[in-house]
């Protein structure tokens, strides 16, 4: 039965989103009770939403467990920006990986976060804890700082207005410190992250700039603190970003 509440599109959407977000980064199946607990919704509500979402294949049911469904996979594959970026960027990312032997990431900025849209693995000995579709705080990553450095002032203010959450002892948590670093990044053309997102992880990123000099994405090389020398890979990262900026602008116009 649908109550008056259920017919309000925002509240329906809020509940659907709460159910989707209840699924963690690990690809795990959840029962209705666990889903209800994580989504902070009544079990009866979750049960009803789940039935509708399973019917539409936004969720998959396998026995008693629910999974994010094949239709989300299909819709996700169609999202224009990541798809276009990946197509254009993969050859450049591969080159950068071959030159540096390190893992290469491509990400876009979404308010105060970066969303990783492509990963090209380097040496298997070290796997940065970053995956495609993953979301990381912009201020704690070279990718995010590289894009913020080239973003309009109001976008930077928006991205930092909710406070800078600490990820490690090295994360920049003071907005003035971050703003000073953004000025330096603009001068250098690349951003450095030293254990600010995860311990042992260091990362060098440069922005991919579109029309008007605004960042559309950023490309980075990630490795261990001991294994990656920022000054040595920075020129290659900058060159890769410049190549991609040119190619994306040429294909857009």
């Amino acid at each position, binding site marked *: 039965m649908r109550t008056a509440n259920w*017919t309000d599109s925002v509240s329906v959407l809020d509940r659907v989103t709460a159910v989707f977000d209840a699924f963690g980064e690990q690809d795990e*199946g959840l029962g209705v009770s666990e889903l209800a607990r994580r989504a902070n919704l009544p079990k009866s509500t979750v049960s009803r939403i789940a039935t509708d979402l399973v019917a539409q294949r936004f969720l*998959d049911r396998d026995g008693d467990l629910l999974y994010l469904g094949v239709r*989300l996979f299909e819709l*996700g594959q169609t*999202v224009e920006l990541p798809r276009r970026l990946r197509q254009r960027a993969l050859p450049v990312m591969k080159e950068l990986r071959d030159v540096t032997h390190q893992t290469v990431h491509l990400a876009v900025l*979404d308010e105060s976060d970066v969303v990783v849209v492509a990963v090209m693995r380097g040496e298997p000995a070290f796997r940065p804890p970053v995956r495609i*579709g993953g979301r990381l705080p912009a201020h704690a990553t070279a990718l995010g700082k590289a894009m913020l450095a080239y973003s309009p002032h109001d976008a930077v203010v928006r991205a930092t207005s909710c406070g800078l959450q600490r990820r490690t002892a090295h994360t920049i948590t003071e907005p003035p410190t971050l703003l000073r670093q953004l000025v330096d990044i603009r001068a250098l053309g690349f951003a450095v992250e030293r254990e600010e997102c995860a311990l042992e992880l260091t990362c060098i990123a440069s922005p991919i700039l579109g029309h008007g000099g605004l960042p559309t994405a950023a490309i980075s090389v990630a490795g261990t603190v001991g294994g990656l020398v920022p000054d040595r890979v920075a020129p290659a990262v900058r060159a890769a970003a410049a190549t991609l900026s040119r190619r994306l602008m040429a294909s857009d116009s």
Partner: protein
Amino acid sequence: MSLAEWNTPHGSADRPVSVLDRIIAVLDAVKEADGATTITDIAARTELPKSTVSRLVADLTGQRYLERTDEGISLGLRLFELGTRASVPRRLVNAAAPVIRSLCDATGERVGLWVQQGTDMVSIAAVAGRLPMLPARAGLRTPALTTASGKAYLAFCADTSVVNRISALLVADDADHFREELARVRSAVVATDVGASYPGILAVATPVLSSDRVVLGAISIAGPSGAMDPERVAPLVRAAGASVTRRLAAA
């Protein structure tokens, strides 16, 4: 808008009725637009009033399911993120990996696992056999309309809009023949492609179904035509599909 208006079906039988149906109809309309679109276009595709579409688009944009740029309305980053966490391809690969490996060992031919995307089948796992012609790698796209894996998938696909979209290129007799072929695939549970997609390559495929009979993908075997016997491999492929379905249900 009154409650009755929300909940009572009226006009076209296909018009989405519940709020969730409308939300999904809007997402599908944006997906099918293939590039940035407009409120007017979404309203036309969904047969919903422009005012309704306008409000849903605002809600969906607020939660990043959609994105509004200078070019128009397109699918948003949240869908990209959710899509990468969707478990189907990974669950399929996990369930199918030992099965496709043993099918390859038993036949010496290339075996692939495919899911449908748009008008293509996309390879999510493959084991190379004696065929040197095609790169047996994941991520390879082939047309769903002519390949064995595509026909195996479409024959069991309950979503007629997918089947219609993919077969839309066919006219008159060809469309009839295609429908007849899908009916044969449904009864045989195998589809065959005798060199129509790739000259000289014979492929036989079977659907992979979930425990509640929803088609998730297809398993195919491909070898040189004339050298691989379709009558011999068909039962093996069919058994492999059933085995993956069982493993999925048990997972």
